[in-house]
């Protein structure tokens, strides 16, 4: 049975906003990121990358590079261990080591522009770059495909000739279709045929990147005992270890991963890139090897999120009730299998109760970098299609889009598109909060001359995961507590973890000193991703803190020469059940531990099912210049069921960050591909992401419906807020100019074209 908890409200630490523990180090530049790692004898390595998106490698001559002064080692695909084709769970997602290895270093064929064909380690970065230019590669250039339509044509070039695709359970060969899945429930055809109102539209989205500030990096040593040590910027030291060990074909115990501070990831730093290459180069050179990626390579070779083609059809009865829905979804996987068809299917219909549904999804290879998770992978794409279609259905039938969503909202007992039944969820509360929000009830105001304004709404969903987490506690003699936990800290999670511990122990958040452990100092912990960290690692911290109370009760029993069962603990103070005047505070007891048995330590670990379904609703006000098509978001509000907000400022930050990324995705961001498969905008100058100057302050409404699966009611929050912005903006544009856009990005050019 899964444990459930009654909601509480009388917290002392939970719900407060302490300054983050890592704040001073980060704002003063003291924090150690991957690029800051220095080791004695450290050398640098760079990759030689393919200039072609698709080509056979006829030959590679590395002799001149190897002879270059200052070069210590050169590797090519021939140096990569031959990883077996086997699917392994990674926590949030899975990995086939054969494809993962092939992605890092081409063997006989390059599959995307920038695909590494060799790597060179030298005395410094510049020497390595100079030597890299001496590697001679002879290519046989092949036709490339960079979108799902071209990739599935009968005469399309086959990217992975040895791949066997899965078409509804049947093997298919000589194809770029890695998988075709279907979910179908009810009488879809019958319900659609009898619907009073229908809408059917096609939507297309370009591939976009997470756009984290810090590029990928790794420093590795491979020593004489075949022990591999890695320092890297990763969203999960243990999943990184699993990948590195699998690609290098060594036991996991041979690999130690030390996570450095991380300058953003959003899912993109779950896969490894440089770590195995740096390790092999270290083995060859017998030196520590460091690699730091250039921005162009980050765009061209690290996992973006899939571009998509989607066709959605909705049917509703005359009373405004959804009766049927179908969705056909094609996602770009990049050059190796594994787009996010599964979660797309889980999310597309989640905000609604629809009795008859079908979803078909195709995972399609293209000559682009292999996709990686990006904040609710798969959900923003299908939210764009579904939420746009819902609004168009409402417009055509004359229904209010918010009331329509309230009338059709999913609730306990509703089935998702993949058939899974919802337990208690907060979609209806979110919709009611939206209806009551200041933004929804405020007029949009008059636009200046030459401009028009529009308002759009959209909902979004992410299922939020649980999985494995570990935490250790140790009491210091000054009454503080050392916390070591396994979740790499991207968004301030160390402080949230400390707050979990502090709440149990009755001490302040800053009396807990949190540290992120490496793979040899803490138990297995899954990725920082899937909106799981505060939920699962926080839960492990809560268990560790309660276990620590138990340990300390034994020490108090020694102190007072009573039975442990006669010791009580409340609000940071131990007392005797028999003699109420006997009390001792946590801090005072910490100073006496040397005489009571020595160090007081504890541990906590979990493997949890779910972080509770996350629903959000966004309101976007847009202003459009009719002469130029330029748009400005003039007001934006994110409403979300967040469970209990442990640190409300962090929760608000997650909603604001997700909204900002979704707005950039909606309006500007895209992989602008040339015909030869080259990305034409692989720099932050040309890949246009919104800055603080582009956005208003994102307003947030935290709907706190405590999650009964967590002791404090925590629910995953980080991913849901990137789902509604794209359709909310599409709906706002339609409201402003009376034209609906079906493709992203909805930039000035697209708007201007629609206006003509």
């Amino acid at each position: 049975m899964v444990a459930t908890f009654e909601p509480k409200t009388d917290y002392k630490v939970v719900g407060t906003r302490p300054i983050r523990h890592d704040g001073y180090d980060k704002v003063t530049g003291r924090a150690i990121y991957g690029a800051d790692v220095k080791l004695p004898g450290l050398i640098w390595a760079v990759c030689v990358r393919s200039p072609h998106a698709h080509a056979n490698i006829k030959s590679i001559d590395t002799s001149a590079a190897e002879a270059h002064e200052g070069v210590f080692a050169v590797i090519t695909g021939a140096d990569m261990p031959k990883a077996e084709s086997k699917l392994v769970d990674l926590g949030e997602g899975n990995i086939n080591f054969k494809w993962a290895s092939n992605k890092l270093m081409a063997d006989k064929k390059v599959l995307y522009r920038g695909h590494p064909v060799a790597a060179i380690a030298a005395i410094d970065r510049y020497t390595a770059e100079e030597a890299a230019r001496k590697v001679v590669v002879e290519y046989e250039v092949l036709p490339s495909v960079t979108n799902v339509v071209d990739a599935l044509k009968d005469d399309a070039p086959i990217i992975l000739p040895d791949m066997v695709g899965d078409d509804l359970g049947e093997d298919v060969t000589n194809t770029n279709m890695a998988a075709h899945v279907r979910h179908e429930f009810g009488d879809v055809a019958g319900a659609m045929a009898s619907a009073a109102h229908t809408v059917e539209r096609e939507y297309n989205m370009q591939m976009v990147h997470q756009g984290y500030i810090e590029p990928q990096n790794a420093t590795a040593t491979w020593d004489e005992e075949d022990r591999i040590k890695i320092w890297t910027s990763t969203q999960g030291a243990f999943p990184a270890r699993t990948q590195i060990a699998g690609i290098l074909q060594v036991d996991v115990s041979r690999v130690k991963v030390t996570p450095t501070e991380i300058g953003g990831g959003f899912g993109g730093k779950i896969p490894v890139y440089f770590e195995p290459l740096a390790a092999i180069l270290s083995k060859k050179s017998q030196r520590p090897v460091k690699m730091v990626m250039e921005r162009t390579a980050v765009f061209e070779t690290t996992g973006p999120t899939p571009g998509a083609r989607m066709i959605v059809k909705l049917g509703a009865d005359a009373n405004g009730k959804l009766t049927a829905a179908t969705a056909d979804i094609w996602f770009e996987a990049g050059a190796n299998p594994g787009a996010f068809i599964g979660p797309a299917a889980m999310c597309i219909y989640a905000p609604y109760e629809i009795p008859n549904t079908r979803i078909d999804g195709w995972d399609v290879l293209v000559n682009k970098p292999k996709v990686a998770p990006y904040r609710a992978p798969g959900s923003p794409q299908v939210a764009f299609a579904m939420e746009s279609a819902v609004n168009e259905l409402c417009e055509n039938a004359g229904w209010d889009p918010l009331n329509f969503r309230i009338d059709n909202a999913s609730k306990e007992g509703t089935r998702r598109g993949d058939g899974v039944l919802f337990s208690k969820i907060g979609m209806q509360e979110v919709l009611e909060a939206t209806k009551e929000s200041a933004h929804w009830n405020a007029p949009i105001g008059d636009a200046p001359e030459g401009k028009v304004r529009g308002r759009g709404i959209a909902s979004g969903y992410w299922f939020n995961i649980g999985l494995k987490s570990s935490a250790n506690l140790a009491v210091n003699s000054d009454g503080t507590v050392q916390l070591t936990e396994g979740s790499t800290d991207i968004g301030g999670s160390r402080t949230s973890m400390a707050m979990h511990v502090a709440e149990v122990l009755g001490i302040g958040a800053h009396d807990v000193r949190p540290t992120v452990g490496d793979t040899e100092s803490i138990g297995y912990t899954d990725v920082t991703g899937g909106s799981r960290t505060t939920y699962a690692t926080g839960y492990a911290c809560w268990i560790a803190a309660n276990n620590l109370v138990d340990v300390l009760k034994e020490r108090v029993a020694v102190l007072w020469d009573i039975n442990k069962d006669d010791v009580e603990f409340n609000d940071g103070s131990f007392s005797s059940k028999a003699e109420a005047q006997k009390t001792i505070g946590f801090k005072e007891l910490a100073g006496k531990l040397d005489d009571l048995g020595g160090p007081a330590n504890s541990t906590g670990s979990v493997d949890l099912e779910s972080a509770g379904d996350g629903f959000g609703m966004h309101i976007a006000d847009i202003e459009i210049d009719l002469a130029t098509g330029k748009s400005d978001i003039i007001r934006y509000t994110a409403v979300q069921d967040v469970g209990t907000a442990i640190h409300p400022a962090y929760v608000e930050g997650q909603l604001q960050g997700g909204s900002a990324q979704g707005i950039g995705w909606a309006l500007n961001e895209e992989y602008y591909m040339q015909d030869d498969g080259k990305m034409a905008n692989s720099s932050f100058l040309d890949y246009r992401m919104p800055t603080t100057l582009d956005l208003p302050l994102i307003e947030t409404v935290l709907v706190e419906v405590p999650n009964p699966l967590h002791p404090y009611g925590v629910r995953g929050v980080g991913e849901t807020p990137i789902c509604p912005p794209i359709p909310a903006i599409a709906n706002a544009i339609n409201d402003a100019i009376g034209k609906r856009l079906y493709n992203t990005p909805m930039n000035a050019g697209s708007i201007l074209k629609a206006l003509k």
Partner: protein
Amino acid sequence: MATVFLPYALRKYADGAERVEIAAKTLGELIDNLEAAYPGTGDHLVEEGRLKPGLAAIVGHMATRRGLLQKLEPDTEVHFITAISGGSGVIDNSRN
């Protein structure tokens, strides 16, 4: 009896049925009994004595973390879906 919602790709083994009733006390027993009733289904669900990588079993409302050892309440629902977020196929990823 547990109600098993068959992934679309497995419905061909059960004459197109969307869901079937299977008696079992654990998830492992359920898959064994499903295979006995509808031969061919088991290979899609189990590999090397464990749930196939990339596959998650939803028991009731929750993705079980106990694998084949998961105990089943009477009248519970069981779904087999893509594990979390990374995979692409309900039953299997592509392979070679």
